[in-house]
Every structure is written in C-alpha cells, then in structure tokens.
C-alpha cells in the first residue's frame, strides 16, 4: 500500500502517460470488439437474434386469440 501511495504521489507530470496508455488500451479494446462483431457469421447472428421468438410454443393458442399479429413462429 505504502509503495503504491508513493508511486502515485511521485508521478506528477508523468500521469499523462497513464492517460495515454489508458486511451490506447480502451481504443484497442473497442476496435477489436468491432472487428470481432463484424466478422461474425451472418447465419449465427440471425440464429442468436431469434432466440426470444422460439419460446412461445406453450401459449401460441392464446396469442392467436389475443391478437392476430402473433402467429406461432417457425420452428427450426
């Protein structure tokens, strides 16, 4: 603890370096994430995004009664 305190207290101007390192790390993380997300397979993304729509097997009948827009979903 004492070491950390003395390091922090003696940094003064060099604190700027910390800020620049933080900026680079954060930017790298977000750019990496965007590349990662863009490179995801379209079929996988489509499959994942449909997850909420595969769970109404039990109440499909009610949906049909309640309003006409909710038709049972395509089951894979």
């Amino acid at each position: 603890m004492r070491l950390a305190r003395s390091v922090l207290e003696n940094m003064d101007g060099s604190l700027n370096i910390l800020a620049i390192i933080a900026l680079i790390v954060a930017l790298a993380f977000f750019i990496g994430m965007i590349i990662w997300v863009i490179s995801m397979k379209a079929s996988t993304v489509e499959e994942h995004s449909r997850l909420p729509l595969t769970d109404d097997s039990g109440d499909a009948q009610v949906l049909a009664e309640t309003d006409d827009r909710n038709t049972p979903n395509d089951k894979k």
Partner: protein
Amino acid sequence: MELEKFTYDNKISRLFLNATIFWAIVAMLVGLLIALSLILPQVSGGVPYLSFGRLRPLHTNAAIFAFVGNAIFTGIYYSLPRLLKTPLFSEMLGRINFWGWQLIIVMAALTLPFGYTVGKEYAELEWPIDIAIAIVWVVFGINLIMTTLKRRVKHIYVAIWFYIATFVTVAVLHIVNSISFPVSFLKSYPVYAGVQDALVQWWYGHNAVAFFLTTPFLGLMYYFVPKAANRPVYSYRLSIIHFWSLIFLYIWAGPHHLLYSALPDWVQALGVVFSVMLIAPSWGGMINGLLTLRGAWDKVRVDPVLKMFVVGITAYGFATFEGPLLSLKTVNAISHFTDWTIAHAHIGALGWNGMLTFGMIYWLLPRLYKTKLFSVKLANVHFWLATTGMLFFAIPLYFAGITQALMWKEFTDEGFLRYPNFMETVVQILPFYHIRLLGGLLYISGVVVMLYNVLKTVAAGTFARFEGDSAPALSAAYPAGRGHRLLESRPLQFTLLALIAILIGGIVQFVPMFMVKSNVPIIESVKPFTPLELVGRDIYVREGCYNCHSQMVRPFRSEVERYGDYSKAGEVIYDHPFQFGSRRIGPDLARAGVTGSLVYKPALWHYNHFLDPQLMVPESIMPKYPFMIERDIDLGITPKKIRTMQKLGVPYPEGYDLTANDDLLRQAGEIAALLRNDGIDIAATREVIAMIAYMHRLGTDITKNTSE
C-alpha cells in the same frame, strides 16, 4: 435429435407483477404528497413522519427499488427460463427473492418516515436493511447464474448479459457504498467522509441509475420488444457493442454529479469525458430498440403495448441525450441544484421505466391468464394519461429549473445580486409546481386505470401456472465456438469479464482519491464537531434536510456573493456522511454559521423558524418542526457516537467519550441562555438547541485563526 420436455412455472413472475402494480401506486402517491407539500407546506402539519425531508427518500426508494425493482424481477423471472429453455434453477430461491424483497421494502417504508436514515441519496436505508438487501440480491444472483448454467441452448441471449451485468454491478455498488460503522441497531456512520464519501456515493448513485434503472430494462427491451413486435432485434451485432461499451463507460460517469464541487478537478474531468462518450452506446441501444419495430409501425398505431414501448424507448433516448448534456460543465453550472435534474430523472423514471413496465404488464397479462386483455381501449387511455402526465410533469420543471438558475445568477448593473432574497426565486417557480402536480395526478390515474384493467382481465381468465416446452439437451459434445461465442457460452467467465469491465472505472477514480493526500488538502483550522454539533448534525440527517438544502458553495461569483467563500475539500473531512445535497429548494447552508453572511441567522431566528418557518418567512415552503422544541436529546448515546467517530479516524482525544456529555451540556446551556435573554424559556437539552449549534458551526472553521 431427441427433445426433452419441461415446464415453466409462472408463479414467481405473477407475484412480482402484482407487487409491481401495488408499489407503483404507493410510490406515486408518496410522490404526489411531497409534490403537494411544496405548494402547501401545511400538509405535513408539523408531524415529523410527513415532512418533505423524510418522505422524499421514501418516494425515491419506493419508485426505484419497489416499483422498478419488482418490474425487473417480473421480467427476468419470466424471460430467463424461456430464453434458456430450462425451468428456473430454484423456485424456492425465487420465492425467497420475492418475499425477502417485499420485506425489505416494508422495512424501508417503516424506517424512512421515522427518520432512520444514513443520509446518502438512494442509499438511505440503515445497515441491517443493507445486509438484508445484500443477502436477497445474492439469492437472486445464484438463481440467475445457476439457471444459466443448466440451460438447453448454447448461446446466451443478449438480454441475459444485461441481467448478469445488473446482478454483478449492483452487488458491488451496494456493498462498497453501504460500508458503515453501526452506532446502534438503526444508526450508523459511513466509513467515508467528505469529498471521498461524495465520490463513492455518486459513483453508487449514478450507477444505480445505470445498473438498476437502465441495464435490466435494456435486457427486458431486448426480450419483450421482439416478442411484442414478433420480429428479431434490429441488429444483434449492435447489441454486443452496445452491451460492452455501455457497461464499461457507465461506471466512470459518477463525478458529473459533483461538478464545480470541492472534488479534485481531474476526477470531475473524467466524469465529464465518460458521460459525453456514453451517448454513443446509449443511442446505439435506443436505435436498436426502435428499429426492431421496422416493418411493424402499422401495429404501433393500434397496439398499446407497442405504443408504450415506443414512448418508453424514445424517453430513454431523450434522457440519455440529456445526461451527457447536463454533464458539460457549462450546462451543469445552470442545471445543478435546480428542478432541471428532477425533470431529467422523471423522463427516465416515468418514460423509460414506467412505459416499458406498463407495456410488459399488458403483454404478459393475457399470456399468464390465458385470456384477452379486458379492454384495449382502457390500455390506450392509460397510454395517453401516462404520456401527457409525463410531459405535464417534466416540461414545467424544465422551465422552473432554468428560471431559478438564471435568477440565482443575475446581477444588477451596479454589481449586486438582483435577487439576494432566495425566497423570491422560489415564489417565481411555484406556478410550475402546480402544473407538475397535475402531471403527477394524470400519470397515477393512468396506473389506476391499468389496475382496473388488470383486475378485470384476471377475473375473466384462469392463471396458467405451468407452461410446457421442449428442446434438445445441450450436448456436452457441442463443438466449442470461437471468439465472443466461446465467451458468452460460458456464463461464469462472462460474469468475471463483466465484473472486470465495471471495476476499472471505479478503481481508477477511487485509488488515487483515497491514497494521494494532495487530493484533500488539510486545513489546519478544521476541527471535529463538538458533541452538541454532532447531535445537531444527526438531527439534520434524520430530518433529511439535505433533500432541500445543499452544503456546497460552488466557485461562482453569484454563489460566493450569496453564500460566502466557496467550499473546500479540507473543510468536510469529518463529515460522515457528506451533506453536499443535490437540490436547492432552500438556500445553501455551507456557510450558515458565518456571521455577517447573507445566510447567517441568530439563535432566536432559528428557534422561531424551526417552530414555524412561515412565521419568519411568510412565503416559505419549509415544513414546521415544532417537535424539535419539545423533544430531548438522547444523551445516553453520545459516548457511543464519539467512540464510533474515533474508530472512523476523527481525532477526539482519548477517553473523550466519557466527558463528551459535559461539553455538550455546557455548550447547550450557553445557547439556551442566549434564547432566555430573548425571552424564550427552553431546557438546554432540547433538540432545537443542538440544531442551532450545528447551524452556527457550519462553514466557520476557515474563518477561525489557527493559533486559537
């Protein structure tokens, strides 16, 4: 592939849904009452339990943790098993979660009006209740993570990421911010003091907004909007970026609640920068929600569920545009301490949380009760009452906030404050408070309409407790994915990474703040409170004075002229908890003890003012505190208070706990003698004496000569 059959149990969801509606009405009724008391301060009638300062925390806690909290659990307990194709891990833990949460709410509703409070906004509950919250929250978390572990689908849907981030972050926030030393069963002092306490508190406060009012609702949005529109989310890729950016950035933004305060500049700057960046993920989420309705806009015209979702998500977009705006120092200089903040908060609460909750209830109800909604027309009426109610609530408060801020800052050509009398700026905005009350009335009538609709629907249907479903087992031999797929298919690793993402911001701000001494420059003349002042301070906290009075003079000419020298970090190092406040319904009190300042008042004035504020200031909207004149100070607890303060590092001399009451009585006797000279015969041990002592201490330390 062989399908396994299983059932979902709707009982827990139904319990939480009922509780949501019940607590919505309670929270809003208390809101109406305190809005009324700002127009008619007589409504409290001098009854301690009905004063604004005690009921406002009840309103905020009930709205956030009771209404919104129960809504979160309703949605999570419904969507989680369905998204994971598995029954809930434990119905028993679910029931403990439900009854435990309701017990906590009841305890809050009982303790807050009785003045048991820590005095930190949205974290007012005393330590035994804090422990109960931590336990119930962990019970919820175990159920959440364990259900995720026993799922039948490989991929964990994005809504659940938001649920997991909510669980992890709220646990961290709650525990770190609530650490305190108990004095007695229902009284404690936070371990942090002054600006450090302020930093921790607003790290908590801001992220309670982020991780209690926002992330769980984004999870609900990602489930219920696609369900109601019957189409998948607009962009699943965007949802991934949305999630990680949002949780990483949000945690840094807390210091924007403390701009221009005595908090070091570097922390304020971090708060501003991250708040501005937050607009990107927030709007990413809003766009993702709204565009999910692409191709379904014709349905929005007729379906109250979708209408509510659209207004809710739009309100989210508005509030998250306004948030970064309010974080800019130039804007914050005007908005802070005014009703602008209240308007902003209610766009979020009434618009985003309220509308999404109502939409979810209208969507769930026919499914839980296997029937049609009793009346779509009434749901539409509710939609319009809620929408207009929200607008009638917020718009007048925007006018009120800006009007009052400009009046506070206006100078005459000769260089004097144009409105040196604070009361003038209050009288000016009272008409807006009337319209706000109307807005609140409209909004709550909408909820009453919903209650009727719910009761009729329930009466017409039969509760379908169990629903069957089937899915293939999640094979252990399922080929491992790559990249993010690998990560989110492993909930424990995912939870750990989310935890790291939310810890970084807090650590970067806290560690230097607590370890580097230059962040809180020592002021030689600042001394601990005397025992009588400490008792007065405890009464100040008990009565929730911080709900209307700030103790933070910002370094503006207008504030220095009105209140005195700007506040410094070194002045509040013995303030457990800090009392900066967030709204000036009354004037700032940081320098209330400095003789010769505009805010200084003599003992006799304070006595009469506590007895009947309208006697001293006819237009005042402050509640009466006659009971302070009748009640005696509890002398028995003074030694304990001193010992607790010593444990927290307040430098009272060794053994001072034993003699503290002598000093207390001596100082009280002096104040009582002063009052007697003015013709008021009062015992020295009355609470009002301690309050006067505290008022007269405020802000005086830096005016003293250190050689004294």
